[in-house]
């Protein structure tokens, strides 16, 4: 891998880190998700910097940016766009909605009704939108970053499994550590810094990076580790259902991107293990109450499945 690409990626992390303090790992994961051509779901309580992260991300990547605040009364047409009758030309003209952009930030995605949420499905999975019988491609690269509040908060509709599966990764930010928080408190509003961020990437560079990820080598021994992992979730009684093949593909793609971020051109089992939680946790469900949530299930997976056989 060319060293200038590596340097750019490091610079991107650093730049975002200026705004999102002490969350290097989450920044890396978000970057990894972008490089793996996936969409990112950030789940956390309000006020820990979800939106800040996405905004910083949008600026530094230099992509066209649209932000939507989902509410319970939002309709699909509000996202996709509408055809409006133009009296001058005596015809309908399509007015594209905010979804037609390169970087879409969906704030509080689980506040919208499932009907509206599903309007995002096709766009995220197939990078295209079909409205009134016409299929319109979305700009490339296309990256959706969504934030959601935990399901136990009021006024939320839980995301359907199919929608969750569309997100390559789900991460949570968590409260900042003491030192970072102090810096934040002392430094004033981080949004002031936001406007100073430089755009280090652009669409072409991102597509080149995404293509470079495809060239990362995954040997059989890693593939069989992935198969052992998903096989375990399908057989073990702790899991309500096993991981899908799409999950396995996602795991490999993310591990490749992660390896690239580490400056390697091959995937180690360590990469799989590091991306396993963000990739798989939101796709797993405990078979019974009291068996723990996503992270516990991932921990079980990591400790039970042998890396080398």
């Amino acid at each position: 891998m060319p060293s200038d690409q590596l340097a750019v990626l490091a610079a991107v992390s650093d730049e975002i880190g200026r705004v999102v303090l002490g969350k290097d790992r989450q920044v890396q994961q978000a970057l990894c998700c972008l490089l793996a051509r996936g969409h990112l779901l950030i789940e956390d309580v309000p006020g820990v910097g979800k939106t800040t992260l996405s905004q910083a991300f949008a600026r530094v990547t230099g992509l066209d940016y649209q932000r939507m605040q989902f509410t319970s009364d939002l309709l699909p047409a509000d996202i996709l766009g509408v055809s409006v009758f133009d009296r001058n030309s005596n015809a309908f003209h399509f007015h594209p909605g905010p979804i037609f952009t390169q970087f879409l930030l969906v704030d509080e995605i689980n506040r919208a009704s499932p009907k509206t949420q599903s309007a995002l499905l096709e766009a995220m999975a197939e990078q295209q939108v079909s409205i009134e019988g016409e299929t319109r491609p979305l700009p490339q690269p296309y990256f959706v970053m969504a934030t959601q509040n935990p399901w136990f908060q009021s006024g939320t509709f839980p995301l359907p499994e199919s929608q969750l599966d569309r997100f390559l990764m789900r991460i949570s930010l968590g409260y900042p550590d003491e030192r970072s928080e102090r810096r934040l408190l002392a430094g004033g509003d981080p949004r002031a810094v936001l406007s100073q961020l430089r755009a280090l990437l652009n669409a072409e560079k991102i597509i080149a990076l995404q293509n470079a990820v495809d060239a990362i080598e995954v040997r059989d021994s890693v593939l069989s580790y992935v198969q052992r992992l998903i096989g375990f979730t399908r057989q073990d009684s702790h899991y309500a259902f096993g991981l899908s093949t799409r999950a396995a593909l996602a795991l490999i793609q993310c591990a490749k991107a992660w390896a690239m971020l580490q400056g390697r051109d091959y995937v180690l089992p360590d990469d799989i293990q590091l991306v396993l939680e963000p990739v798989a946790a939101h796709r797993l469900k405990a078979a019974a109450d009291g068996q723990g949530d996503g992270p516990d299930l991932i921990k079980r997976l990591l400790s039970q499945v042998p890396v080398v056989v």
Partner: protein
Amino acid sequence: MTAANINFVAQRQSVIWLLLAQLVTLAPLLGVLPVWILAVWAFVALWYWRIVSAAWSFPARWIKACIALSTLGGVYFSFPSLFSLEAMVTILVLAVVLKLLELKTARDHWLILMLSYFIVACGLLFSQQIGALIMALLQIAVLLLAQQALQRRRAKTLPMLRVVGVMALQSLPLMLMLFVIFPRIGPLWTMPLPGGQATTGMSDSLEFGDIAKLSQSGALAFRVRFNGVMPASHDLYWRGLVLDDFDGRRWTRSSWSLWSNKMNPPVLAEPKLNYTVTLEPGSHKWLYTLPQAAVSRDDVYYSDQHLWLPARPITGRMQYTVSSNLGQGLVDNKALSRKNLSLGRAANPRAEALAAQWQTQWPDTQDRVAAAIRYFEQTPFIYTLTPPLLGESNVDEFLFDSRQGFCEHFAGSFVYLMRAAGVPARIVVGYQGGEFNDRDGYLLVNQSDAHAWAEVYIEGQGWLRVDPTATVAPNRIRLGAEAMLRDQEGYLGESPLSLRNYEWAKRLRYFVDNINYAWARWILNYDSGTQNDFLLRVLGDINPQRLMLVIMLAGGIPLCLAAFFSLRLPKRAGEDLAARYYLASCAALARKGVPRRAGETPDDYLRRVEAGHACWAAWLREQTRLFSLCSYLPQDSVSYQENLTSLKRARRPQKWLERSTSATGYTSK
């Protein structure tokens, strides 16, 4: 019937191998089969090839019938009798060759190959020399390859050869066991064994020129191994048969002596000379011994001519042990036959006149013998392989005109003169001398050592040997036939081994003969008697239980081995060697108290060991590096094996530490 009817996919490879197998089966038999068989094979093979290439079709029924009948006719005209072994084998070979024109199923293909095995076995009827066996083994190897080519999708020669080798090794113990314990059943009927009429050897009659003809052959007659010191060459008179019946031209065995001619075996005085004679294959009607001899064998008897004869002709190779006392006379214990004085219807007036002169001059028979020997010494005779042809009075013509002759001329004339002079005399035919193979210490007696000499009867002393050739050409006896006749035209003229003048050629010939002799002694002579002795010695007692045990062991051990190697437990899914050696390394470190957790990646494990168990860190770092190189890094086939080997070698941390500390220049990273 069209080519489309071939209901098995005649793969090109299997067809090529089949034709090759047929050719290989045929080729060594070409000395026996008529040569036109090769043309028939080429024709049929070409036809079959065209059928497989979908160019021609299978012949119609009447065409096949015509071909079969015409080839059978060919066999009928090629051999004197259809009921000879050669003709039978030819018919079998023809059947296998012509089957190609009906080869439509894989089963036919199989049948041809199976019959080819049978033909290979038939080849051993014609020769059992070690060369023939090696040839047969090579043929079987080709047949096995052809069988595999029929079954395999892709006929690659090397993997197929490996299978042949494995099969050979697997069948070896069983083969050896069967050789050792399979019962040697005597012939149930007499096979018309090949070559009985054609091989060179002694016949039971003698005419001038017979032995000269025989001496042109380089073939081996028999081999002798002496227990002790070999007598001098001039004492080696191998008596074969006695010719005392003379019809005036031809010497034969007296016909009446063929029955009731048994005599009690002689009692030999010390010192005895013990030796073992191995006759080359053939039909043996007499045994060659040095006089006076005692043979220890059940199926031979002692004749009144002091010869050892088999009760019934013995075919094949024959071996017997003899004790001899060279000094003991051949004394008859019954009245002398008048045959020994008969001159037949011969008319040799000059010789008879000479003999009559001796008879009147010397009243004592011994003096007459001495006079005759003196006569042969003083007359300028020439010892030659190519004497002129003699007319009606051949003894006269030889003694007084041509004076050129071979041993039978001298012996015949001598006996004639003696009989004419009233001394009982007869011709003895056999071999004289031999060629000592000092590589292995035994004597080779060749057909070129064939010889004829005379015996005269002296009252009180019995039959005394007189060899007039020795007086005419002393070197023939002293140095042997080879030294004497080497320069003569015709000697060994039939033999391709005219390289006898060269020392290296002689060495090579002795070496090859050593192998053949060992082969004959240990393999071909392993008959029911030796088998019995051997089994008694090895098993202690021959009973069915023990034999069965031996057979089962011989067959069972290779089977068990094959089962052991083929019934290995299936590999664990995804197991590869690098992982195996890495896990072995981890297990070794676990024994040192630092086990790796199942879900721990190699790098995590390494970090843990580096943090808590620094003494193993360097070793584990190297093992982890090698394992990652083998399993995770982009594959490089060149260094993969090296890394794997290093990984395997260093999977014991203790040893690795010892090695690296003892190795100079090692620095811990």
